[in-house]
């Protein structure tokens, strides 16, 4: 009986969906992906978000194109616009210039570009960033290691990664002032072989916990084999190492997509109003989440060990578990009081980067060349001054 009711309800919903699509004009929205939807990282997350957005906005029709090389963004957009797309999301930094060009070429189409900085009256930018979560992960990583030696597998030395690695190191040093983060670059977003080599060499060099920014689950799998605590990246990788995944960062691009599309449907966002629309969404907006998997901020298996490590915050004694949960709650609240990039912060060469009492601006964070103290290993184009 219950099932029948459910079915009826679903049928009703579908009916409503069809009905409203015929009546209101929800613009057809199309997504240009840089990778295959089957990676366990970036493109997979955008595609999941697309599906959730479709569910959330009645009558929304979407389309996607996967693995679009940078040279082909323009022809792909041409084709999508020809197929009736009125909103186009381009989800890679490398699509920036071509998206801007397309915005000029198709003034009646709304564009939104991920992770870039160029905008137009009909082109917005958006980004969901993890730096706050990396800070929390750094705290936990340091608490779980005896020596404070941590390892980090990075894709490319771009500002996004420097921001993540530095936040991780700052968090680690908040728990253990002697903590170090050894970084290995694999110069690829998707290269399981190199990721494994990097993770293994970090472990053999003494790393007692691993974090990473690249688009595979390899580091988690490698850590699971060696029983080393690890932090999952982008999507939940808990299932690849339920005994070793402490926590990690999860993304919810749908928060941005749904908000954006609601405003498009309502008319607030149109082809004239996007010049200053730049989403920089963090924990507060729920675009990102601390966790080994959805709803599990910290793997319960590590709770006791994290509670056993005490730290002093503003003269008060607490433990790492409680502190991480408190900071997570604060940064997820409507008015966060804490930011990992609150000055004074020196870079690892002793140059003052964020003055006392100031918080690094979005612009600073987006063009970060320097890295925080404690980060070891070669960093390409680290500013000397």
């Amino acid at each position, binding site marked *: 009986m219950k099932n029948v009711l459910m079915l009826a309800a679903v049928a009703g919903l579908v009916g409503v969906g069809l009905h409203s699509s015929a009546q209101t004009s929800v613009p057809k929205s199309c997504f240009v992906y840089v990778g295959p939807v089957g990676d366990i990282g970036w493109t997979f997350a955008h595609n999941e978000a697309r599906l959730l957005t479709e569910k959330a906005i009645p009558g929304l029709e979407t389309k996607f194109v*996967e693995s679009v090389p940078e*040279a082909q963004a323009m022809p792909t957009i041409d084709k999508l616009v020809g197929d009736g797309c009125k909103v186009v999301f381009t989800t890679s930094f490398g699509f920036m210039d071509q998206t801007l060009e397309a915005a000029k070429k198709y003034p009646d189409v709304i564009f939104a570009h991920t992770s870039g900085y160029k905008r137009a009256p009909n082109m917005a930018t958006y980004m969901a960033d993890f730096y706050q979560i990396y800070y929390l992960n750094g705290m936990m990583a340091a608490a779980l290691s005896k020596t404070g030696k941590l390892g980090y597998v990075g894709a490319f030395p771009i500002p996004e990664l420097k921001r993540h690695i530095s936040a991780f190191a700052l968090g680690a040093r908040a728990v253990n002032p002697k903590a170090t983060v050894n970084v290995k670059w694999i110069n690829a977003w998707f290269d399981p072989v190199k990721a494994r080599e990097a993770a293994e060499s970090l472990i053999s060099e003494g790393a007692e916990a691993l974090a990473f920014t690249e688009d595979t689950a390899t580091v988690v799998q490698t850590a699971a084999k060696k029983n080393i605590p690890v932090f999952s990246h982008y999507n939940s990788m808990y299932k690849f190492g339920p005994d070793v995944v402490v926590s990690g960062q999860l993304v919810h691009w749908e928060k941005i997509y749904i908000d954006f599309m609601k405003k498009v449907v309502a008319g607030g966002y149109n082809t004239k109003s996007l010049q200053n629309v730049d989403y920089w969404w963090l924990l507060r907006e729920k675009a990102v989440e601390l966790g080994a998997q959805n709803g599990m901020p910290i793997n319960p298996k590590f709770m006791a060990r994290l509670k056993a490590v005490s730290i002093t915050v503003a003269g008060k004694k607490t433990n790492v578990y409680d502190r991480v949960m408190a900071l997570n709650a604060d940064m997820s609240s409507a008015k966060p009081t804490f930011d990992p990039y609150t000055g004074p912060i020196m870079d690892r060469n002793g140059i003052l980067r964020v003055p006392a009492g100031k918080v690094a601006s979005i612009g600073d964070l*987006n*063009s970060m060349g320097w890295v925080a103290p404690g980060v070891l290993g070669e960093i390409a184009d680290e500013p000397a001054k």
Partner: protein
Amino acid sequence: MRFTPLLNPSRWRTLQVSSLAVIVALLIVGIVFALSGVNPLTAYWEMLRGTLLDSRGLAEVARRMIPLLLIGAGLTLAFRAQFFNIGAEGQLLFGAMAAGAVALFLPITPLTLPLMFAAGALAGGGLALLAAWLRQRFAVNEILSTLMLNYGAFYLMLYLIGGPWKGKNVRGFMYSDEFAAGAQLPMIPNTLVHYPTLVLAILLAIALQILLTRTTLGFELRVVGENSSAAKYAGLKTSSIVTIMALITGGLAGLAGVGEVAGIHHRLLEPGQISLGYGFTAVIVAWLARGNPGLTLLTAPLMAVILAGGDVLKISLNLPFRIVDVFSGVMLLCLIASEIFITNKLVWSRAVKPTGSGGAS
């Protein structure tokens, strides 16, 4: 059932068998379409409609054809001389890097673009020459050396754009700065077709055909390829012929690289985004053309239709992006497998009666 060798397979037979191989490939890919839930006829119709019957689609075909034609024409020559150059990807990247060096570090003059093409051809040719030299000097198999040099070129480019050539205005991402306007090729408006490279490619394909069939060098090259000991016996300088041939095949791939960066990207970027597998797809172009540079004028557009058509399938029917690779893979496989039917006749009788050589029949 057995094969009996044909001494002099006719051109007509080559054409027949090759066309049949292409048709078999289309049938096999049709099965793949059906398995992924798309009516093969719909898929092929979409491909055709989105490429040849649509102005934007045609532009895409032309854009894909440029590097395929340049590299393919050069490869036919190399294959004719039995030099199996699998390194066009790397040679293309070397061409792109040389063009980048000229565009980024030399003063921009009206001669910048010609200089970029010259530098690119030299760089690509130089890389192929290295493999040719290794073969002549140390008998290193050129299939392996050219293939391995692809990785060398790939990582050299990554090093350059992540290090010394990294742009100032790229926010830490791995790109060079944008080329100045004087180092960018003109386009057919509203397309990505850099027509100077297209014209150059067509002229070179014709020139190579003339070189191969109407000149002494072409004759020598064919002799070296078909029977190197005979060539030596006849007193031909094998080494200098192979050198010239390597310079041409690598040089054309280098030109393709120049066209891609000066025409489309206007900067250096992650190497995989520039070469896009053109160097490998062009092997099929050359193979289909059976060693005739002129015929690549037909086979390059064919492969370009498949590449551009694959994109159409990706967009219109949401087929997985690997469909293009499946397509070219099946095509190459069928062509290679068909080779035996060109040089052999299928005889259905059971009796063993050797024809051609040996026993009188």
